[in-house]
């Protein structure tokens, strides 16, 4: 049968030479490699003093966005919960009362918005599905915690700070 490429190398089935059989030269070669590794630059990042560089599209913790005037963008449409493959997002909608126009953009808003971080797989589908640019995945790595309950992030944990109040 004709070989497809000329890169095939026949397997070397010669019996082992004396130097190969006593393993000692191979061991010494291995020791030299390991010795070389001792003097190389270490690949460890001393977290939390240094953090590793993240790419711009890194999928970390979720944030709920506000617009330029500080109103919440999320309208509790439920597209992110529908898109989530792990069913991690739940929400309850509420109607905007007349005196709350500065808080919410549209008439419907999310009274409760919870993401169960233990179920979340950080895929970013919710970010892609949102029609209002409300959910984003930031660059924060999820911190550790002690109880399962503390991993269910409520709306207050997820909302970013008010832009106008932050400047004060």
């Amino acid at each position: 049968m004709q070989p497809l490429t000329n890169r095939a190398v026949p397997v070397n089935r010669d019996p082992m030479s004396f130097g190969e059989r006593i393993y000692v030269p191979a061991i010494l070669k291995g020791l030299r490699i390991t010795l070389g590794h001792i003097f190389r630059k270490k690949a460890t990042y001393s977290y939390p003093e240094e953090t590793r560089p993240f790419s711009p599209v890194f999928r970390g913790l979720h944030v709920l966005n506000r617009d330029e005037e500080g109103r919440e963008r999320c309208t509790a449409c439920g597209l992110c919960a529908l898109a989530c493959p792990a069913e991690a997002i739940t929400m309850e909608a509420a109607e905007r009362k007349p005196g709350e126009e500065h808080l919410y953009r549209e008439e419907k808003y999310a009274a409760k918005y919870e993401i169960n971080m233990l179920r979340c797989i950080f895929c970013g589908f919710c970010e892609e599905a949102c029609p209002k640019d409300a959910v984003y995945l930031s660059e924060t790595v999820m911190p550790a915690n002690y109880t399962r309950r503390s991993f269910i992030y409520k709306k207050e944990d997820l909302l970013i700070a008010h832009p106008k109040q932050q400047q004060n």
Partner: protein
Amino acid sequence: MLLLQTDWILIAEKLGLITLILLVSLGVAAYATWGERKVAAVMQDRRGPNRAGPLGLLQPLADGLKLFFKEEIIPSHSAKVLFVLGPAMFMVTALMTSAIIPWGPSFEIAGRTISLQVADINIGVLYIFGVVSVGVYGIMLGGWASNNKYSLLSSIRAASQSISYELALGISLIALLMVTGSLRLSEIVEQQHGFWDNGYFTWNFFKQPLGFFIFLVCSFAELNRAPFDLPEAESELNMGYHLEYSSMKLGLYLFAEYINMFITSAVLATLFFGGYNFPGMDWVAAQVPSGVFSLICASVFMLKIIGFILFFMFIRWTLPRFRYDQLMNLGWRTLIPLALFNMILTGAAMLTIFK
């Protein structure tokens, strides 16, 4: 009258020495765990533990405390007495060998000669060999008493590995015995005084290089240390013979392994690398009082031991593990003929060349 006749100062001196050696063994073994992790890390392009204390030096303390706080489990279907006896025996045999090693030359204080060797028995080398053989019991008891198929298999492998390599160990020691003419460890160290004498090196490593190599390989196998660490092969037999152990019993097994490593390095240094001798020791002995000289010799000895420990770790993190049949092949079909060849060669050389 018996009370006045006994030499209380000798008893106090021996007890003090025993305590000191125990503390040093435990300390060195504890920091060998730290050193192992650091050495493994630098060879793998990472840093080791560096959070517990400066440079991670309190890490052994953290590990010890963690083991203390864990739950002490004795499986209900295990053989309870043997279960507890296994790690205890392992630890005891690990510590027992430290009794005969000469840690330094004897020195004089207030007219008394204090020797830095707890027991100078005249069958020193044979004692080491015997204690190493008994050390196999600790592993076997642990595996059997666990009432667990995998632990049993692993302890059987460990026992067969140990006894296979003991033979080559013994035969290489016979060749060494031919050269030194004495089993007494203090005499063996005395014969390696200084570094250069009468036109050749005094250390036994230069007189018995092949014997040293065989002894080294067999000591790797006796310590159950990579590349011979099939008994504790983490990926193959779960945890091996210490699978069912938790808390301090596991701590004893792991710790005893490091103490074994320390003691084996000490034996290697004593038998082949001159013990506490170093080049230029006579000049140093003339400059300083005998107590300080003993201390210097003991420190040199500790440096040699630490060098061997680092070598053990170096090999562990470089070589892959042996398969069981490769291990047995190596022990019976390669090392024993090699050791016999070494013995015959030494005998022939001593009869013909070195009268």
